[in-house]
């Protein structure tokens, strides 16, 4: 990770995200200055002094984790804490490459219908019991069981059976080849728990194979993790990490300035700028993206020409500058670094009002038309500002965007039901494009009713992307997906934002990730 030492002269603008969440529930706020430095993506572990062993660190969070049970965690804070307590079969490194987790290696059968995982030896749960293939089978089958309401059940939807030929080997048998599953298994929602544990036991105490264990939890105040003495990897430099609840970001900034807190992620860049003292703020681009979702099954959105007119009428950079004061980058559909879409590969790379007028005329709406858009008022900051900027631009193209600004609960209900003509949204991204859009755009995807679009081409492309083992060919398939989405103006992808990780200069070894993950707490220590 190349760090940006922004201190106080750098502008900050943020969007906190839960990388796996369908829609990000955190926010952003406005900044007052133009950027003086460009954000840099996480590329490798930080070249910093080796951390000393021992000591404690305090991480400031605005709300305490709402659960400690990994299969049901969706909240940002819960996710960030639990990924340090539980392990998964596969994991991501800082560059988002899939690397071994609890599985030391794996082999995909020639037909792609079976993946054999060789499990790591000598792994123990924090209670001292041994980890083996029975725990993997137990965990995955429980996640598949609808009665357990595990949020990542759909990831294992294509797994028809799980074999455990011996205690060190697990075989996932798939209905169809699924290359993306290795990346998707990294989610802590697919954490491996002991076959002796249940949701009930794991709701009050943790028992994972990860680098930390839950030491204490005081509702509304803090969660303390301690080094797991049974961890299979390198012991964590820190003895304990306290996630301290300071409900207001200004309070976290004050606590950092006073030296009470050593690390925090800010969603409000203005607040992050108020931190003083020896603190470094890292700006990390995020996989999440802002979009104007168009429901191609509803009202005038069924007409491709109307959707293209909207695409051509919007100046994404201007919306970004107006609503988020330039804190972000214009994006195409796929935000993952390895598969990133060219943001200009679309019918209207730049705003083109003449083209918009032509598309409108082709749709039979030369005189203009009205569209309804739902906007969440209190789900994430910036939504209303983005909606107003988009509406102002569309008005110049003779398209009236009627904004329905809704309370978050109403918005979510309408969003889930696909009950909208268009929606201003902040959606979470994932490193693998199949994980990111495989549930939205294939006709069988469990969020297809929300995406409002499907086609035979899209189904074929996603099916091909799932089974294609050659990385170059796979990349091309998702470039085709991206082109299909943009050429049909399925949605209007606007831009991605940043998060701002403030770390005290007294700590070393932490690497922020574009997924928002805090997995590198395991390598973090005091200088």
């Amino acid at each position, binding site marked *: 990770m190349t760090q940006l030492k922004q201190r106080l002269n750098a502008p900050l603008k943020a969007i906190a995200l839960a990388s796996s969440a369908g829609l990000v529930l955190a926010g952003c706020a406005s900044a007052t200055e133009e950027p003086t430095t460009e954000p840099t993506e996480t590329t490798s572990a930080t070249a910093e002094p080796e951390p000393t062993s021992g000591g404690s660190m305090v991480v400031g969070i605005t709300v305490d984790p709402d659960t400690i049970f990994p299969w049901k965690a969706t909240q940002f804070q819960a996710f960030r804490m639990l990924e340090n307590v539980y392990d998964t079969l596969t994991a991501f490194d800082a560059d988002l490459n899939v690397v071994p987790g609890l599985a030391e290696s794996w082999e995909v059968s020639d037909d792609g219908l079976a993946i054999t995982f060789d499990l790591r030896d000598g792994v123990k749960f924090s209670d001292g019991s041994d980890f083996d293939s029975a725990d993997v089978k137990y965990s995955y089958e429980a996640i598949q069981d*609808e009665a357990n*309401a595990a949020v990542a059940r759909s990831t294992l939807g294509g797994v028809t059976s799980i074999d455990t030929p011996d205690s060190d080997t697990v075989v996932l048998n798939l209905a169809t080849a699924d290359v993306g599953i290795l990346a998707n298994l990294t989610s802590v929602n697919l954490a491996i728990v002991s076959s002796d544990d249940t949701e009930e036991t794991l709701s009050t105490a943790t028992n994972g194979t990860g680098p930390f264990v839950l030491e204490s939890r005081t509702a509304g105040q803090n969660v303390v993790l301690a080094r797991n003495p049974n961890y299979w990897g390198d012991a964590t430099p820190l003895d304990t990490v306290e996630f301290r609840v300071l*409900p207001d970001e200004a309070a976290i900034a004050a606590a950092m300035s006073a030296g009470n807190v050593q690390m925090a992620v800010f969603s409000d860049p203005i607040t992050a700028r108020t931190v003083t003292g020896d603190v470094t703020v890292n700006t990390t681009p995020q996989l999440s993206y802002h979009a104007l979702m168009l429901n191609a099954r509803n009202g005038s959105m069924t007409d491709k020409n109307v959707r293209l007119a909207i695409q051509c009428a919007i100046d994404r950079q201007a919306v970004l500058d107006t609503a988020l004061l330039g804190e972000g980058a214009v994006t195409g559909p796929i935000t993952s670094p390895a598969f990133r879409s060219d943001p200009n590969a679309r019918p209207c790379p730049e705003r083109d009002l003449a083209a918009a007028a032509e598309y409108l005329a082709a749709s039979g709406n030369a005189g203009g038309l009205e569209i309804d858009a739902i906007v969440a008022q209190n789900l994430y900051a910036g939504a209303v500002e983005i909606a107003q900027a988009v509406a102002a631009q569309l008005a110049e193209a003779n398209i009236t965007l009627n904004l329905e600004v809704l309370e978050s*609960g109403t918005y979510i209900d309408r969003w889930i039901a696909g009950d909208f003509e268009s929606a201003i949204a902040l959606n979470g991204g994932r490193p693998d494009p199949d994980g990111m859009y495989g549930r939205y755009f294939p006709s069988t995807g469990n969020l297809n009713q929300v995406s409002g679009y499907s086609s035979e081409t899209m189904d074929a492309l996603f099916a091909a992307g799932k089974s294609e083992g050659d990385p170059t060919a796979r990349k091309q398939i998702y470039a085709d997906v991206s082109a299909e989405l943009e050429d049909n103006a399925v949605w209007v992808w606007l831009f991605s934002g940043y998060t701002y990780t403030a770390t005290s200069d007294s700590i070393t070894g932490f690497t922020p990730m574009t997924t928002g993950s805090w997995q590198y707490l395991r390598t973090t220590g005091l200088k």
Partner: protein
Amino acid sequence: MTAILRSSVIRKTAGALATLFGVAVFVFFMLRAIPGDQISASLGTEAAGLTEAQRQALVEYYGIDEPLTTQFFSWLANLFAGDLGFSVRAQQPVLDLTVAALPVTFQLAVFAILLALIIGVPIGMLSASAPRKARDFVGQALSLLGLSIPAFLLATTLLTFFAVNLGFNPNGLGYKTLFEDPAVNLQQMFLPSLVLGFGISAPIIRTTRAAVLEIRGQDFIRTARAKGVKTQRIQFRHILRNALIPIVTMTGLQFGYLLGGAVVVEQIFSLPGIGRQVLLGIQQKEYALVQSTVLVIAASFVIINLLTDLLYRAIDPRVRAE
């Protein structure tokens, strides 16, 4: 106990119970009128990916599968048994959470009221001692400031100023109770109490000033002066004592509001009080947590009002006579 007093106590108690029942009904149904439920609050748009069976499992998990009336009466019945419900988020009974949070807010309210009285009463008396003179204008200006500066602004400014310039931020250390660490606890309560106390001192200044001015002009004060009673004794023994009734009324009301209304200050200063508990409950749509906590706040308010009534009797012999 006289028959009149007995009837008064019965009337007040019945009124209080009716109020609490009204609050219970109102909060219970208002909460459920808000769109969304604990599933969508917890999962957000991820809830779109749930199958019907998964959704049903979650409905049962959160205990929102029963008809509303059944939920309501079961909640009420449990309340009488001392069971305020269970917080799925915290994995703790609401009673335990409330027992932990209530003292924090209570301590904050007491300190804020004390500060408000320390600031408000002397300034109000000073203002009244020279109406339309400089000290009166200063007093009125302070009162205006107290009324017009929003608590969130004052709180954020003080928090940032003390932390950045003086390195003083005891609230960043994580909350400590008075028994765990009295020194840290008192430091943690200082700024929040000051913010709240400054705001509350405004109506107290105004009430004190008005009451003192009114009493100063009354015959018994003139008589006392004519009898040669010392000015200081007149100020405190005659004027202030008689001015106390409206001040006590105002203070009682403010104290009641503080028990439920210190959300902003608790939030900014990271105090795990009752206001934050309700706020978090609303955000997470934890029905049991919100409705039970609100009822506890309402009960506290009613009790404070009853105590205020009793205090009248202590400070005003005329009320005792009635």
